[in-house]
C-alpha cells in the first residue's frame, strides 16, 4: 500500500518540480544569424549572399537585352523583356521590377531590397569575425558598401526617386516607421555617389588573384560611379520639367529637380576621366584578339576586317579579357538551359544533337540597320550605300566574301552587304557565314531550312536574324554544358570611353578629345575614325556633322547603340535620352520567316507590336500591393 502512495507522489510531483527544464528543449548550437560572423569561412557565405542578388543579365528570361528594339522572340516564347516592350507592364504584376521578387524561368530574381538588407547586415556584423585581419574586414566591408550603392543604383535606374536604406530598420519597427518614402532624385544620386566614394578607400585597386575575379575593386567602383553620374546628368533625370514638374511626395517635396544643371555633366566627365586614368594605370585596355586562330581562318585573319570580326566577337565572350572591368562571375550559362547563349545558339547542321541550341532569340531589322556601313557611317548617311534599295536583293561579291556565301545564285539584301565588322560579328543572317563550333558554316534561315522555322515549332528566330554576339565562338550547342560560359560584362572599358565622349560633348561641345575617345572604340573593330567618316564629302551625306554639338551627340548615341548592342544598355539609354517615343513606340520588324523562297522570305513584316506611353513608361510602376502597404509612397507618374 505504501508503495502505491510513493508512486502517486512521484507522478504528481515529478512534472511540477522540473517544469522549466522539461520545456527547455532547444539545445545550444542552433542556427542563428550571429554564426555567420564567427569565422572567416562563414563570413564568406555572408559575402556571397550580398553578391547573390546581382541580376542575371545573361539569363534569357531576366536579361534587359529583350527590353529594347534590338531583340525579340516568337510570341510563344515571350520573355519578360518582350512583354514589357509590348506594353504589358502593370501595377498588379510589375514586369522586371527589381523592387519586388520576380520569378522568371530559371533562377528567380529576388527584390533588391533584400539585397540591401543583406548588405547592411554584413556591414554591421563583419567586424565581429574573429579570424580575420582588420584590413581584410575593411576590404570586404568596402565591397559590400559598394554593392549596396550599386543595388540602389539599379533601383534608381528603374524607379528614379527611391527610398534610401542606409541602415536596416529593426524587425520591431512600428507601422509608421516602416513606411519609408521615396527620396528626391538628386538626394538618391548623392547617396549612391557618396556611398561609392566611401567604399573606394579600402578597396584593392585591381583584383589580381584569379580566384577572386568578379569581386569589387577600385576600378569597378570608379567605373560604375561614372555610369551613375552620366545617368544623373541625362535629360530624363536632369531638369526634366516636362515630365516631372508635379511629381511630389505626399508632403509636397518635389522628387525631381526640374532645373537643368549643366554641371552634372561635368561631374560625369570627371568621373569618367578618373576611371579611364585608373584603367590605363592598371593596364586595362581595349581587347584585341590574339588567341589561336581556327584553321579555316589562318590565312584570312590577316585581313583587317576579319581580324576586326575576331576582335569584337571575342571581346564580349572571352573570359576576363583585358577590356573587362567588371564581369558577373556567376554566369547562368554554366550548363543551364535558361541562359541567353543557349537560346541564341544556332544548330550546327552537322551536329548529332542540339540540346543547347534553341535558336529563338531574334535581332530585329531595327538592330540590323543601326550598324554602320563599312565606311563608318550610318546607312542613311553613306552616299555609297543603297539605302533606298536596302531590302532589294543583290549578288554577293568578293567584297563580302568573308561574311556571306558567294556564288552566282546567292542573292541577299543590300542591307547585309558592305557593313562594318561589328554587324557581321553580332548578327547572323540568311546565307551569312557563322564561325562557331570550330567550323565555318552557312546560316540558312528560310522556312524548312536548318536554321529556319521547321514545322510549327515555337523554337525559331522570328525575324530571320540570329544573335551571334552573346555566343562564344568556341561554344557547341550539342549540350548545355558545351556552351562556353563567360562572365557577363557588367561594365567594360569601351563604355567608359563612350561615357567620357558623351559627357565631354554635353559639357564642352565637340572636341578632338571626343573624337579620340570614339575612335578608340571604332578602330578596334575596324571602323574608320570619326574624322575619316564624316569629313569625306564623297561619303557622308551630312559632312562635318561631328563638328556641331547636336551632330556629335547623335554620333555618340549611335556609337553607343552599336558598341553596347544586346548588352542590356539600350532600354536604359533610350529612356535617359527621353527618346522612347521614337524608338520604343514603333513595331519591330523582321523578314517573313514563313517564306521558303527568296521572294517570299525577303519581305519585311512586323514581328512584334511595341507600346510606350510617355511619360508613364519612363519609370517603373510600384506594385499595387506595395502602395497599399506603404501609404507614404507615391506612385510613379501615370500609373
Amino acid at each position, binding site marked *: 500500500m505504501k508503495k502505491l502512495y510513493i508512486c502517486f507522489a512521484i507522478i504528481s510531483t515529478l512534472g511540477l518540480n522540473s517544469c522549466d527544464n522539461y520545456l527547455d528543449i*532547444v539545445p545550444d548550437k*542552433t542556427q542563428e544569424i550571429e554564426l555567420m560572423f564567427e569565422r572567416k569561412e562563414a563570413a564568406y557565405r555572408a559575402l556571397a549572399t550580398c*553578391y547573390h542578388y546581382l541580376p542575371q543579365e545573361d539569363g534569357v528570361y531576366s536579361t534587359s537585352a529583350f527590353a529594347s528594339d534590338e531583340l525579340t522572340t516568337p510570341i510563344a516564347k515571350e520573355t519578360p523583356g518582350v512583354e514589357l516592350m509590348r506594353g504589358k507592364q502593370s501595377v498588379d504584376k510589375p514586369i522586371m521590377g527589381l523592387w519586388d521578387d520576380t520569378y522568371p524561368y530559371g533562377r528567380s530574381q529576388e527584390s533588391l531590397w533584400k539585397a540591401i538588407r543583406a548588405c547592411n547586415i554584413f556591414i554591421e556584423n563583419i567586424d565581429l569575425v574573429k579570424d580575420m585581419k582588420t584590413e581584410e574586414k575593411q576590404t570586404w566591408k568596402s565591397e559590400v558598401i559598394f554593392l549596396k550603392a550599386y543595388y540602389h543604383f539599379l533601383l534608381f535606374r528603374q524607379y528614379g526617386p527611391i527610398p534610401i536604406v542606409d541602415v*536596416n530598420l529593426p524587425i520591431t519597427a512600428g507601422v509608421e516607421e516602416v513606411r519609408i518614402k521615396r527620396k528626391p532624385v538628386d538626394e538618391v544620386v548623392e547617396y549612391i555617389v557618396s556611398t561609392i566614394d566611401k567604399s573606394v578607400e579600402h578597396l584593392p585597386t585591381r583584383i589580381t588573384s584569379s580566384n577572386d575575379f568578379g569581386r569589387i575593386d577600385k576600378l569597378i567602383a570608379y567605373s560604375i560611379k561614372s555610369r551613375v553620374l552620366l545617368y544623373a546628368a541625362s535629360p530624363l533625370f536632369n531638369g526634366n520639367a516636362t515630365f516631372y514638374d508635379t511629381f511630389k511626395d505626399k508632403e509636397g517635396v518635389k522628387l525631381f529637380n526640374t532645373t537643368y544643371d549643366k554641371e552634372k555633366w561635368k561631374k560625369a566627365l570627371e568621373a569618367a576621366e578618373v576611371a579611364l586614368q585608373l584603367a590605363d594605370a592598371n593596364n586595362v585596355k581595349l581587347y584585341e584578339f590574339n588567341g589561336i586562330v581556327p584553321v579555316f581562318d589562318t590565312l584570312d585573319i590577316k585581313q583587317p576586317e576579319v581580324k576586326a570580326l575576331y576582335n569584337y566577337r571575342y571581346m564580349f565572350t572571352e573570359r576576363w579579357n583585358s577590356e573587362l572591368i567588371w564581369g558577373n562571375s556567376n554566369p547562368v550559362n554554366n550548363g543551364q538551359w535558361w541562359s541567353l547563349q543557349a537560346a541564341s545558339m544556332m544548330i550546327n547542321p552537322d551536329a548529332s544533337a542540339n540540346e543547347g541550341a534553341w535558336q529563338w532569340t531574334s535581332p530585329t531589322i531595327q538592330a540590323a540597320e543601326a550598324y554602320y556601313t563599312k565606311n563608318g557611317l550610318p546607312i542613311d548617311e553613306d552616299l555609297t550605300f543603297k539605302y533606298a534599295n536596302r531590302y532589294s536583293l543583290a549578288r554577293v561579291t568578293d567584297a563580302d566574301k568573308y561574311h556571306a556565301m558567294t556564288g552566282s545564285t546567292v542573292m541577299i539584301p543590300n542591307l547585309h552587304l558592305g557593313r562594318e565588322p561589328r554587324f557581321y560579328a553580332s548578327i547572323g543572317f540568311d546565307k551569312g557565314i557563322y564561325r562557331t563550333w570550330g567550323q565555318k558554316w552557312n546560316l540558312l534561315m528560310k522556312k524548312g531550312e536548318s536554321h529556319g522555322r521547321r514545322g510549327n515549332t515555337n523554337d525559331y528566330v522570328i525575324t530571320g536574324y540570329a544573335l551571334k554576339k552573346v555566343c562564344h565562338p568556341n561554344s557547341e550547342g550539342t549540350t548545355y554544358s558545351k556552351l562556353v560560359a563567360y562572365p557577363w560584362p557588367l561594365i567594360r572599358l569601351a563604355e567608359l570611353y563612350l561615357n567620357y565622349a558623351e559627357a565631354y560633348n554635353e559639357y564642352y561641345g565637340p572636341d578632338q578629345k571626343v573624337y579620340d575617345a570614339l575612335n578608340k572604340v571604332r578602330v578596334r573593330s575596324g571602323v574608320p575614325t570619326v574624322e575619316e567618316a564624316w569629313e569625306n564629302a564623297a561619303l557622308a551625306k551630312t559632312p562635318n556633322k561631328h563638328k556641331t554639338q547636336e551632330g556629335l551627340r547623335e554620333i555618340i548615341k549611335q556609337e553607343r547603340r552599336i558598341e553596347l548592342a544586346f548588352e542590356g544598355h539600350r532600354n536604359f539609354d533610350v529612356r535617359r535620352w527621353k527618346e522612347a517615343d521614337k524608338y520604343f513606340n514603333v513595331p519591330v520588324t523582321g523578314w517573313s520567316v514563313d517564306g521558303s523562297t527568296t521572294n517570299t522570305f525577303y519581305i519585311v513584316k512586323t514581328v512584334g507590336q511595341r507600346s510606350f506611353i510617355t511619360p508613364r513608361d519612363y519609370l517603373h510602376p510600384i506594385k499595387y500591393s506595395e502602395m497599399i502597404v506603404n501609404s507614404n509612397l507615391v506612385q510613379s507618374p501615370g500609373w
Partner: protein
Amino acid sequence: MKKTLTKLIFLFATLLLSQLTFAQASLVKGQVVDKEGNPLPGVSVFQLSSTNGTITSIDGKYAISNLNENDSLRFSYVGFNNQVIKVGKQTIINVVLLESASALEEVQVVAFQTQKKNSVIGSINTVNPTELKIAPTNLTNALAGKIAGVISYQRSGEPGQDNAEFFIRGVTSFGYANSPLILIDGLEVTTTDLARMEPDNIASFSIMKDATATALYGARGANGVILVTTKTGKKGKANISVRIENSITSPTITNQFLNGVDYMELYNKALRTRDPEALLYYSKDKIEGTRNGLNPQIYPNVDWYSELFRSTVQNQKANMSVSGGGEVAQYYLSVSYTDEKGLLNVDKMNNFNNNIDIKRYNLRANIDVNLTKSTKAMVKFYSLIDRYNGPQNDAGSIFSMVMQANPVNFPKYYDKDESTQFVNHVLFGNKGNGGYPNPYAEMVRGYKDRFSSTTTAQFQLEQDLSMITKGLKLRGMASLNSYSLSEVARGFTPFYYGLKEVDGESGVIHSIEQISEGTEYLTTGTSNKTANNSFYFEGVAQYNRVFGDKHDIGGLLVGYARELLTDASSDVYSSLPFRNMGISGRTTYAYDERYFVELNFGYNGSEKFSKQNRYGFFPSAGLGWVVSNEKFFTETMKKAVSNLKLKATYGLVGNDAISSNRFYYLSSVNLNDGGKGHVWGEDFGNSYNGYNINSYANPAVTWEVAEKANFGLELGLFNNVNIQVDYFTESRTNIYMQRDYIPASMGLTAPIASNIGKAESHGIDGSVDYKVSVNKDLWITSRVNFTYATNQIIENGEPQYPYPYMSSIGQPMNQPRGLVAERLFIDEQDVLNSPVQYNQMGSYMAGDIKYVDVNEDGKIDDSDMVPIGFPTVPEIVYGFGASLGYKNVDFSFFFQGSGRSSFFIDPTTISPFVKERNALQIIADNHWSDENPDPNAFWPRMSVNAVANNEKASTWWLRDGSFLRLKSVELGYSLPEKLLGKMNIEKARFYASGTNLLVFSKFKLWDPEMGGKGLGYPPQRIINIGLNFNF
C-alpha cells in the same frame, strides 16, 4: 426463457381475470416493465393525494388496495419518467415506463472525472453512441447534425481520405489550427484515430464547448474538446456481441460529360466563335466516322468515366466484443475487421490490384483489476493495423483526370497490329508527342502499398483515500502511443502509341506508331515512412463530499505532461520533441441541488515561447440554478416542466498551437543555403553558398487567448421532451499572424508575425429530444440538433486599404472575395462602352463576363474585389430524425443539412476544350453563343484557350453551398425472444440501412457537400445490410 413464458401466461391470466372481476374492486394489480418488456423491480406505486403506496416486486409486479374509481396511481422510478394513471374501473393496470432522457445521462463525463448530470454547469453535449453508427467506416462522417455545437462537412468520399472537417462552435480563430482537441480515454489523438473508432466500443461521446468545460485541458482546449471513453467490463458472465455488415456503395452524383460527337462539334463551334477564320480542328470525316461508330481505333469515342470506374462496390465489416468479469477483474475485449474498397476498375492485364482496398484490424482490450478494496488498476490496450492498397496516384486525382481527357483523342489503348503483335506491353493511347493525359494509363500503371499501425498502451491506478478523509481519491495515469507508417508505390512507365496518318493512293492509311518509350517492368517509385511516439502522464487528486445533506463540495487538481517524438528531421527545430505541461484545478460547490458554483483554472507552459512568456494562467467560473428544484416549483408545475435549469459560464482559454513554427523566440536561419550563394574566380570555381533567414526571432510571441461566455438553458417538458439551448460568445485575442503592413522595402526574407489578430464569434446551439412510449408495443424517439456559429475579424495585420470593402475587418473568416459579375457582355459595343477589365490580362469580347466597377475608377482590377456570398465554412449545421419501434420492428431516419455557406466553381478546372480538355454536359446545354446570346447563360462564350477574363473569382462562379440530405434510414427486425431462447441467444437483430440516399440543394452539378472540389472522389451512397447478435 422460462421466465418470459411465465410472464406471458401471467399476463394473459390477469387479463382474463380482469374481465371477470367486478368493476368497483378496491384492489388493483399489475406489472411494470420497461420498453423492452423487462420487469422493473422497486418502482414506487402511490395513490395520488395520499400516502397509500407500495413498490414492485422482483418481477415488477405490484398489488395495491383501498382504491376507488376516482383515484389515480403514480408510478415513479429513478431514471424513468413518471406516469400517472386513473384507476377508473380497471383492476389490472400494466405499465410501461420510459427512461427519462436526462436520466440516460444521469452521470455526465466532464474533464478528468464524472459529475452528476444536474450539477454540470459547463456546456457539454453527450451523444448516444448508437447515434454515431451511420457511415460504416468513418466516425467523423457521423458528426454533422448529430451534436449541437459541431460544424462539420465532408468534401471527399475517397476511402481512407474521407475524414470530415469539423469545428466546435465553428471557426473561431483565423490563426493556425481550429481543430478541437480529441481525447480517447484521456489521451490526445488525431482526427484519423477518431475516424477509425468502432462505435460499438464507445461508452460515451461528449463534446465540451465553453470555458469551464475545457478549462482543465488548459492550452489544448481552446478550440473545444471531444472526449470519448471506451467501454469497460461489468461483473457477470461473459457477454458476447457480434455484428456483421455488408454494404454496397456508389457515388451520390456523377459528373456528366459529352460524348465524342457532341464534343467535336462543340469544339469546332468554340473555335469559330472567337476566330471565325479558324480552321476546323475536327474534320467532318472524323465527326461522321465517330457518329457512325466506325473503327474505334481511328474514331475513338471513349467514355472515360465508365472505363475507369465501376458503379458500385461492396464492403464488409465485422465486429465482436466480449465483456464480463468477476470480483477482482473485469474485462472488455473487442476485435473488428473492415474491408473497404474504391470504385476504380482493375485491368485484367495486370496481376496487381490498382483499386483502393483498405483492410483494417482493430483490437481493444480494457481490463480493470481491483487490487484492494480501495485500489483499482486499469489497463487498456489498443491497436489498429491499416493495410492500404491503391493506385499510384491518389484516387481523387484520377477522378479529376477524367475532366482532363476528351473522348475522341485516342482509345484507352490500341489493339496490337502486325508490327506490334509481339510486344509484351499495352499500347496505351496518346497523340502528338505524348503528354496528353490518358487517365486509364495513369490508373493502371501501378499501385501503392501502405501499412500503418497505431498502438496505445495505458496504465492507470486509482486509490480511494477515504481512510484519510472521506471523499478523497488519487489517480495516476501513464500511457504511450506509437504510430508508424510505411508506403511504397510500384509502377511502370506506360508506352504510349499514337495513330499515324499517311496519304496513300487509296486514301489515308492509318497505322500505329510508338510515341514514347516506357518500361515493361515495375519500379518502385515514391516511398514514405513516418513514425512517432507520444508519452503522457497525468496525476489527479479528487475530493467530493456532501456536508449536512445540502452542501456538496468538490475539488480536483490535475497535473500532466505530454511529449511527442516524431521522425521529422528537415531541420534541428522540427526534430526536437514536442512538449507541453500544465496543472489545472476545479472546485465545485452545490447547495441543496439548487445552486451551483464552479471555479476552474488551467496553468500551462509551452515550449514554444520565450521564458518570460512561457506560462499562461487561464481561469474560468460558472453559476447554475436548477429552478425546478425550488420549493415554489410545485408538483403541478412539475407536471408540465419536469426540469428547468439556467446556467452561465465565463472564462479564458489559451492556445499555443498558433502556427506551424516551433520556437518563436529563436530565429531560423539556413546558414548554408545553396540557393543564396555566389561564385567568383576565373573559371567560376570559387563557390560559396549563402545564408537565408527563414524566420525572425520574436521573443514577445505568446499565447492566443479565447475569452468565452456561455448562457445555457435546460428544459424538460411533460417528462418526454428535453430541450437544451446555449448561447455563446467568444473573443479571440493575440491571434498570431503576419504583419501584412510590412512593405517590400524592408527587405525581409521571411514575413514577420506577432500576436496582433483579434476575432469575435457568437452563436447558438441546441437540441430537442422527444421520447414517448405510446403503448407497450410502440415507442417513438426523435431529436433535433441545431448549430449556428458566425464570426468576424476584429483586427488583423492588414494595411490601410484605399477602399473600405477591401478590408477583412468586420468580415467573417473564410469569407470569399471576388468581382461582382453583372452579366455577359451583350455585344462589342457593350464591351467598348464598359470599363477596361484587367488591362494586361488578355482580350475579351461579347459573351464574356462583364464585371462591376465597384470603385468607379474606370477600370476593373483587383481593387474591385469585394466580399461575396457566405463564408466557405457553413454557419449553420443541423440535423433531425426519429426512431420508432413497433413490437420487433424498428425504423429510424435522419436528415442532415447545412446552411449559409458558399463555394466557387473553379472555372480553370472545368473550362472545356482548353488543352483539349473534356466538357461537362451542362456547358453544352447552357452557354452563350451568337444563336443564344443569353447574358446569364451558365457558361460564357466558349473558347479553346483559357480566357483569363472569365477565370477571375467572381459572383459568376459563386454558388450557395447549403443543402439538406437524407443522411440515413434504417429498418431493423429483432427476432422474438421466444425463438431466441431455443438458440441460447439473448438478442438477434437484422437490419438494412441506407446512407446519403437523397440530397436537396439548389446546386445540381455535383454533390454540394464537395464544395469547390467537385471533380474529386464523390461522397458515397451506402446501402448496408447487417446483423447483430448478443449471446
